[in-house]
């Protein structure tokens, strides 16, 4: 008895042609250019370095495009490449890791102080964009990147934790402190500008 021959293995899928690769890269990666640029700008705090960082990220991503799993989160994949490039090549030149003890930052809300004067937070409307961006740029780096990934780019706690390689609890606590710190700085700015009187205490 010879039995039936096993079926021949299926032919390997044809390698994507250069045109197909380009097409899928444009469709799934290049659409995130604005996000990459915003994150790069906040990390480097320098438009020309942000340009270079994004360009380098896109080049690395294009070369590694065969490793990207279609249907998974392309934005997260690209941001991970960007962050590694930043840590390896830019951070040393542009900024120094903070020596601030992040746990000593008191995360209290300005809401209590505004309860009588401006509980609806209308003073926020008077703060110009540049001032908001400056306040983010002044955050300690670990806080800054967490806020940007969450509040600007809308990533979930889980996605941020994976990207930064920290537990979800750390993301929560950084986000909590970063937002409160940011709120406090914008509040102080608004008081300084006379938009609100602020607490007299």
């Amino acid at each position, binding site marked *: 008895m010879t039995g039936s021959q096993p079926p021949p293995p299926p032919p390997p899928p044809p390698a994507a042609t250069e045109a197909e690769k380009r097409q899928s890269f444009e469709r799934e990666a*290049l659409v995130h250019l604005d996000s990459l*640029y915003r994150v790069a700008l906040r990390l480097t705090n320098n438009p020309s370095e942000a340009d270079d960082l994004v360009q380098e990220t*896109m080049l690395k991503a*294009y070369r590694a495009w065969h490793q990207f799993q279609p249907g998974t989160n392309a934005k997260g994949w690209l941001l991970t490449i960007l962050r590694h490039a930043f840590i390896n090549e830019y951070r040393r030149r542009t900024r120094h890791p903070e020596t601030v003890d992040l746990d000593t930052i008191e995360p209290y809300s300005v809401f209590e102080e505004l309860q009588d004067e401006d509980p609806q937070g209308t003073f926020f409307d008077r703060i110009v964009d540049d001032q*908001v961006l400056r306040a983010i740029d002044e955050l300690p780096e670990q806080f800054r990147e967490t806020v940007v990934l*969450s*509040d600007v780019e809308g990533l979930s*706690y889980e996605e941020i934790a994976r990207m930064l390689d920290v537990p979800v609890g750390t993301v929560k606590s950084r986000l909590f402190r970063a*937002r409160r710190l940011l709120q406090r700085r914008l509040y102080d700015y608004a008081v300084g500008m006379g938009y609100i009187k602020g607490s007299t205490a």
Partner: protein
Amino acid sequence: MNCRECTEHLYEYLDRELTPALEREIREHLADCPPCGEHFDFEKLFLDFLRARCQAQGAPPELKRRILRQLFDE
């Protein structure tokens, strides 16, 4: 749930990161507790404000041209 417990989950609630059961408990507390409700509204406004102000910024058109040239025209 008391006010302190509720406020501990403030950002997780606003970020939609809670389990449905806990989210419901918070929602019920907020409906019954105007001070917590106002506090949550204020924080939500703050987050919306941050998002709106920061997302306005996009990549310069020249950067996109540079990248397309580098990737596809070499």
